[in-house]
């Protein structure tokens, strides 16, 4: 739990406050995203929590203890910190970077090794391949992963993350965000996350703190930020494409269509005929581990030829998406591959259902019927 009470920071007395009279409460196990234009005081706020910067006024509590009453180094050992530019130690290998905090805490060699290897796997880097590499041998995305692993090394209950996915391309960022959310689902850490990107805020935050000129403008759930912006600043910051941003919030499983008949590769051709007679257009073909093989357009085939060797008519889907993806990801894929249906699969490739373009449209219009922004999506 993190609590800020009337916190202010003046870098220079004459100038205005970089952060002014800030009150914020991040609940246990939740992600609070601080978002706002550059220079609005996000980094300053974050750094006051672990005392890299001392507040000029007010009190900050981490797990009910006043940070000002603790030794800064001991405090920081208990708070995971991912800084804006990652700041990996260039003379340390990936392994040594990740092992930094456990070493400072005096863990036993073996415990450190197990933990570092476990963490590298968690952030998606194989220890065999990456442990001995130096930061300059890594891509931007890999550096970010190591930065996150280093921050989580001693399993701190609280983490501060300053634009942790800022320096990578959009595709990698999306991937890192998804992976981090997956990790957070299990780890349930209390996280203060800074970004200047409202889309990232909506995606990552349980709650969003919108800041402007050192002041907190609105602290609310992503839904409320999108649909009940407190004032013009928030409205403008969120952008005119609010309805599209809603798609970021919704996961594909909210409108998953699981009604398509599933058949396996050795299903008898009679079954297919029956399905076709019933008017079924598509069926999904799975292997014996429930993994997606492809689909068959029944009606077309039945009209023309026998179904004796039906497996040669199996077609592959041009694209699939992960069950954790947002509806926005689904839409993007649909536009990218010029399709209206995309199958959803789990992490290990098991088929879950289909998302369909029209279903997304009607879901949004039903769900947010009363809201005037809807016509912008469906219209």
């Amino acid at each position, binding site marked *: 739990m993190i609590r800020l009470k009337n916190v202010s920071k003046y870098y220079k007395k004459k100038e205005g406050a970089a952060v002014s009279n800030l009150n914020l409460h991040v609940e246990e196990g939740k992600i609070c995203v601080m978002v706002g234009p550059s220079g609005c005081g996000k980094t300053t706020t974050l750094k006051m929590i*672990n005392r*890299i910067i001392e507040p000029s006024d007010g009190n900050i509590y981490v797990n009910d203890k006043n940070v000002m009453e603790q030794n800064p*180094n*001991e*405090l*920081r*050992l*208990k708070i995971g*910190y991912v*800084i*804006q*530019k*990652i*700041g*990996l*130690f*260039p*003379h340390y290998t990936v392994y040594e970077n990740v092992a*930094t*905090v456990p070493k*400072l805490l005096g863990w036993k060699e073996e415990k450190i090794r197990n933990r570092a290897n476990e963490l590298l796997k968690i952030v998606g880097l194989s220890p065999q391949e990456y442990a001995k590499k*130096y*930061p*300059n041998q890594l891509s931007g995305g890999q550096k970010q992963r190591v930065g996150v692993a*280093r*921050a989580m090394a001693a399993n701190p209950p609280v983490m501060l993350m300053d634009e942790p996915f800022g320096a990578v391309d959009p595709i990698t960022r999306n991937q890192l965000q998804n992976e981090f959310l997956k990790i957070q689902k299990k780890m349930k850490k209390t996280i203060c996350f800074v970004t200047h990107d409202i889309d990232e805020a909506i995606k990552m935050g349980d709650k969003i703190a919108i800041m402007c000129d050192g002041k907190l403008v609105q602290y609310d759930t992503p839904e409320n930020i999108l649909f009940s912006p407190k004032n013009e600043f928030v409205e403008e910051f969120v952008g005119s494409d609010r309805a599209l941003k809603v798609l970021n919030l919704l996961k594909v499983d909210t409108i998953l269509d699981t009604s398509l008949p599933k058949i396996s590769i050795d299903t008898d051709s009679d079954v297919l005929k029956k399905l076709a007679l019933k008017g079924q257009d598509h069926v999904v073909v799975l292997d014996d581990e429930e993994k997606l093989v492809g689909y068959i357009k029944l009606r077309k085939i039945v009209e023309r030829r026998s179904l004796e060797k039906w497996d040669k008519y199996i077609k592959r889907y041009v694209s699939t998406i992960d069950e954790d993806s947002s509806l926005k990801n689904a839409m993007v894929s649909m536009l990218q591959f010029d399709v209206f249906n995309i199958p959803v699969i789990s992490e290990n490739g098991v088929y879950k259902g289909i998302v369909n373009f029209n279903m997304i449209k009607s879901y949004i219009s039903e769900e947010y019927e009363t809201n005037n922004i809807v016509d912008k999506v469906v219209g």
Partner: protein
Amino acid sequence: METISIFDILTKEAPEHILQHLKLVLISLNIAILIAVPTGVLLTRKSFKKYSSKVIAVLNTAQGVPSLAIVAIFLNILGIGIVPSIVALTLYGLLPIAQNTVAGINNINYEVIEAAKGVGMSDKQVLYKIELPLALPIIIAGIQTSSVLIVGTAAIAELIGAGGLGRMIFLGITHFLPKYTLVGALLCAVMAIIFDQFFRILNIKLTRNYKQT
């Protein structure tokens, strides 16, 4: 004596002077490192940072004084012998090391230092685990420059009784024995090259794994 061959000079007389020269260089270089590195580190600490440019400027000016003048000055202050020679040589070697220590530490990316503090390292741990190792290549480059300077200046320090290869050079000059001067000067040059290459290779070895980005 005029008929002595270069070979004889090299094998019979030079070794003793080489050793003496080496002794002068190693002692002064080590003292210079022991003084200059901590001074450089001190000049990068928060409370001393404001003096760093001034101190470096003073040292810079001192470096501008010709080595012959430095040697002459110490003749007047400390007299003749090994000790004043070592003092003069040490002083002469300070600047490159101190300057590079300051530059090496100040050149480290700020976010690396912030990350080190952020994960909970104390100031001392940040210095020993992060700043010094990362500044090391530049510090070593400073030591490399210093060593070459000291090897050369040590020859002149013979004027206040340092001994070493300078003795051969000046003996050759005063007694009109050009072979001695030649051998002394060549050996001096070779020693400078060896020091230079030693530190160059050491630096490559130390930093072959990583690059500061």
